[in-house]
């Protein structure tokens, strides 16, 4: 699985395991979501969702940083 292209399946070299504790509510939510996105296991769904969330949040952070940079260019000496 590439970080830049999360895939909804486990790659063949997924040999590490991470244990997760979840409430019943989380378990049901993830099961429903895995079914909706056509992913067969909860674990594969969590791996995929975590990678996707990281990508989205990183992209948002970069976009926010770009926006702050543009604002500084437009207004290099803001009044205090």
């Amino acid at each position, binding site marked *: 699985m590439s*970080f830049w292209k999360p895939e909804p399946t486990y790659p063949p070299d*997924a*040999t590490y395991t991470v244990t997760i504790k979840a*409430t*019943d509510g989380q378990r049901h939510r993830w099961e429903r979501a895995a079914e909706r996105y056509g992913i067969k296991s909860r*674990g594969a769904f*969590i*791996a995929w*969702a975590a990678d996707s969330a*990281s990508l989205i949040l990183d992209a948002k952070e970069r976009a926010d940083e770009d926006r702050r940079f543009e604002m500084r260019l437009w207004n290099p000496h803001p009044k205090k």
Partner: protein
Amino acid sequence: MKVATFTVRATAVQSARWKQAAEAEGFPSTGGWLAAAADAYLKIRARAGLPVPLAWRKGLFRVEMEGGELVTVRGHLSPPFGVFAGTPAELARYPGRKRFTLVYTHSTRVLGTLASFAHCKVLASELARLLYRGEGAEPSGNPAPVLQNPPA
């Protein structure tokens, strides 16, 4: 509170990245971070995926057909969108119609031809977001239909 425990498989790269992210964000364990990230993803999807609910009514609107002819058609309206049964080549004149065309009524431009009225409503809802973001400006200056090929 009842707690379930299960495992997630990961590659070496994923495992290292998740561990790093968990540490950077102050989670005591990688599993805790994964659970939070999965929930965060579902929230992002829920927020991003909610269509703007458009209200539709029956009415008449004008559309530029494939040959350039401007015709008035009867269909469903939710300005600035209209949907009629048929394709830009010809209006449907038979029961069990299998093609519906979404039109941007302000410019009479065809946006796409889809397999059902429901699909047209979803596409219109998605385009409505772009219209709101563009403060009413047409999302694309390209006069070609948004969807080039109707889905089978």
